[in-house]
């Protein structure tokens, strides 16, 4: 993926893949001490309204990362309203009753007028073939006029400006199937500013410029999905893998849903899901935990207690047989293979982590060794868990990018060969040890980044019920045996449980 000097904010997709955390019991004692020492620097508390804080003091540099994990994602959307979690994430940067406006009362009236016109457009459009095109055109021009009117009360992007002026860096957010995260790093003396801004954002958000932002999100959809062959494939693939559970819905949403959604619907989504007990905050850096607590009470304590919505009730039924999807495109071939697996809470989760390492991580992984090094039929290949999410039963995903002159079929066959090996023979002690050592080292390497730690602490707290699992997960992986891997591989990697998606290259203009 090329780096573009552009704005990658408000990203969609799985922004946060969980760390493969493993501890090798026989490893150097210094590492275990490091982890214990780290744990001792964490303090946690909950406010009366249910909002939870995790504070990790890291005084190395006078900076702090502030990270909010909202327990709401695309999985919480219903038919007709896909993309709403992500759209709200964009709107959370549009300001509050006091930030982003010159005159909140006059603005509120102007926004209500825009809503009214849009509702009329929406109603007319829904008539389908019998929609009055002339009436629509007229309404569209009235909408543009009303939007222009509302601009006069606007202070553009003030929320961003205030934090940027204070020295904020990395201000951004991301939405996945499972959750939505908001984050920024600041000079440590600006903690209170963040408290004020972030609490206001979830107490008094004003969804101004809503209909312009829908246009932005539609461009994002074109950018990520409609003009990116692999993005297109992934959307089709997930829709095939899930016929009942909302993991089959695209995080960015369907184009027609983005087009039709109203501001009132976005506000209702916010009220339902952004309740204090659905928010978990991590503060990592050069801060005094007692002061964090005082400020948190002052600012976030204002958010009224509201009941949290329940989890998704739909359970994906077992597949009656293999599912396959094809995307015809001028692009080069690509193959995706997914198997349904349990959620992160399942006791076998650590076994899947070990399988990820052995099958898919690095030059010594089985897939790379076979498809790239030995057979030279793929330019890239891997296998990992976590798509499209981990809160509910997700997928273990394999993929390969066939080398020039080689096919999806060859790569698919070679991946199945490796899967068969995993099912039929126990992995070697050496491979298992390597997986454990590498995961332990990966965790230690993550301990020197405020933002990485903030992300991980909230991830484990919300998805597993306790941030300590970031560390305890290591012990679980250490207990994984070769028999566990074989047992899990046999149960999970079956033909019946499989979905396959491929890009089939059509005669196009891409290659002569």
């Amino acid at each position, binding site marked *: 993926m090329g780096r573009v*000097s*552009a*704005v990658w*904010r408000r990203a969609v997709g799985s922004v946060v893949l969980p760390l493969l955390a493993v501890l090798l019991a026989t490893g*150097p004692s*210094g*590492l275990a001490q*490091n982890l214990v020492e780290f744990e001792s620097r964490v303090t946690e508390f909950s406010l009366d309204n249910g909002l939870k804080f995790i504070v990790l003091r890291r005084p*190395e*540099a*006078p900076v702090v990362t502030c990270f909010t994990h909202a327990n709401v994602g695309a999985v919480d959307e219903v038919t007709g309203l896909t993309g709403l979690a992500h759209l709200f994430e964009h709107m959370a*940067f549009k300001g509050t009753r*006091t930030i982003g406006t010159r005159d909140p009362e006059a603005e509120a009236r102007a926004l209500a007028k825009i809503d009214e016109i849009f509702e009329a457009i929406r109603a007319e459009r829904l008539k389908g073939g019998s929609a009055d095109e002339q009436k629509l055109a007229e309404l569209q021009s009235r909408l543009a006029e009303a939007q222009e009117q509302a*601009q006069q009360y606007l202070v553009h*992007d003030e929320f*961003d*400006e*205030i934090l*940027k*002026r*204070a*020295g*904020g*860096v990395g*201000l951004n957010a991301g939405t996945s199937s499972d959750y939505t995260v908001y984050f920024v790093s600041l*000079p*440590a*003396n600006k903690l*209170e*500013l963040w408290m004020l801004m972030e609490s*206001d954002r979830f107490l008094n958000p004003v969804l101004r410029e809503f209909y*312009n932002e*829908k*246009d*932005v999100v*539609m*461009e994002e959809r*074109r950018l990520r999905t409609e*003009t*990116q062959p692999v993005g297109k494939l992934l959307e089709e693939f997930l829709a095939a893998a899930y016929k009942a559970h909302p993991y089959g819905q695209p995080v960015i949403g369907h184009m027609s849903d983005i087009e039709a959604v109203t501001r009132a619907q976005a506000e209702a989504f916010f009220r339902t899901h952004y309740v204090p007990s659905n928010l978990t905050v991590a503060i990592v850096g050069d801060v005094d935990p007692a002061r964090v607590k005082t400020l948190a009470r002052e*600012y976030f304590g204002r958010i*009224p207690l509201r009941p949290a919505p329940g989890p998704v009730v739909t359970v994906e039924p077992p597949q009656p047989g293999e599912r396959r999807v094809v995307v015809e*495109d001028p692009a*080069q071939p690509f193959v995706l293979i997914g198997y349904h697996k349990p959620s992160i809470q399942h006791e076998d989760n650590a076994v899947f982590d070990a399988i990820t390492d052995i099958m898919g991580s*690095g*030059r*010594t992984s089985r897939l790379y060794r076979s498809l790239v090094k030995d057979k*030279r039929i793929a330019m890239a290949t891997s296998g990992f868990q976590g798509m499209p999410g981990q809160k509910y039963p997700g997928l273990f995903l394999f993929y390969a*990018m066939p*080398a*020039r002159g080689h096919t999806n079929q060859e790569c698919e066959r070679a991946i199945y060969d490796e899967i068969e090996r995993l099912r039929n023979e126990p992995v070697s002690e050496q491979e298992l040890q390597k997986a454990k050592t*590498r995961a332990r080292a990966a965790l*230690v*390497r993550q301990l*020197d980044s405020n933002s990485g730690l903030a992300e991980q602490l909230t991830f484990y707290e919300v998805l597993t019920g306790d941030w300590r699992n970031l560390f305890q997960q290591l012990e679980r992986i250490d207990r994984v045996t070769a028999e566990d891997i074989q047992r899990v591989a046999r149960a999970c990697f079956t033909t019946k449980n499989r979905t396959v998606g491929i890009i089939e290259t059509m005669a*196009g*203009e*891409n*290659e*002569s």
Partner: protein
Amino acid sequence: MRSQRVCHLSPVLCAVAVLFLAVSPVTAQRATDHMQLKYPSLRDVVVPEVQRVTLSNGMWLLLLEDHELPLISLSGRIRVGSIYEPADKVGLADITGEVMRTGGTKSRTGDELDDELEQIAASVETGIGQDSGYVSVSVLKEDIGKGLGILADVLMHPAFRQDKIELAKMQHRSAIARRNDSPRSIASREFDKLIYGPESVYARHTEYATIDSITRDDLVAFHKRFFGPNNMMLAVWGDFDAQEMIARIEKAFDGWEKIDLDLPPSPEVDYAWRATVNLVARGDLNQSNIYIGHIGGRMSDPDYAALTLMNHILGGGFTGRLFKNVRSRQGLAYSVFGTYATRYDRPGVFAMGCQTKSESTVHAIEAIREEARKMTQEEVTDEELELAKDSYLNSFVFNFDSTGQIISRLMTYEYYGYPPDFLQQTRERIEKVTKADVLRAARAHLRPDVLQILVVGRPEDFDRPLSTLGEVRSIDVTILPPGK
């Protein structure tokens, strides 16, 4: 609950309120407006002392102890690059950099190195970019001997085994076959060619023919010419004792012979100013990728500080003019950018652009172009300049929040011949920049009348023909088959 907005009542009341908050002895009072907040002063950043040593073999070393975690990292630069490879062997530098590591050493195959390193969760990597070679090592501290040994072996005795050369060439050929799969990468690649020229070492790229012509002898000769201790810098940071580390490195590279250094500097860029309109037509797209710009500048330019602030105001993240007008106000794009890029040793590229639906292509081009024009026509506002400066100065502390960043920056400055305090100098200059300076710098460096425009998209669906912007040149991105 309705918030009270004290500051909006009157400046006097506001001042009283702030005073009250400041002297209030009881628990913290919640501010209702960010303007009321008073910030404690930020504690001083202690910039650690970096130790510099030149070894007897000519290798230039930087060391920084950091005992927080039991890890050691190394990062090195070698003066080499694809700018030195012949035009009919584009890809040679990259393949040499890769196979040095994957092809193993005289005593161990690359696969054996992989096994050895992954068992201890360590990494040793090498690579060659456009104007610099890179090495990196990351190990748990007890494994430093092993990591350093492998690094030295790879640098001094690479075996360039044939199977890994073939593997690297396969990867390159596959990448060529896939290079038109992403419209974004087509746009950035073709735009570089428009700016630097298609034959330029700064823009040219691999073809099947250039990959096919690369042999093992080429790799061996390329390595021999550039890799020697006196052509290398190495930065080391982490949990070690500096004196001990110097001795270890000296020993690891013992016997590595100096090489003759007669490298030409990076080639100059001879830019011909011209306004052009270019199209890569792709019938399967519903969104256009747009690039607009011309040649950029160097970081050593006296206007660098003013240009840095101009970039903040024009295209800086979520608060620049382009973001405000093209994204927030008009909803034309998700990603919009605009930067007058400066590089250490040769001119960068001034590039603005976005991705927008086919139906708003020409409108978006005009909206973006207008921002460049405005930048050269009138002074920025006080608020804009203040925001850009505050943002730069208040976030300055993030230049020092990791040891790896501090030491790598010093090495980069040294590599390109910049003073070690270049960052501090820039900061001082930034503080002094005025609105007039920004306008003067914009006028000296931006030429909105001679912009080159590139669109990758489906012209049938554009809002207006691209030809309304000028004569359209069509770019053929068909991949040349092998042997051509």
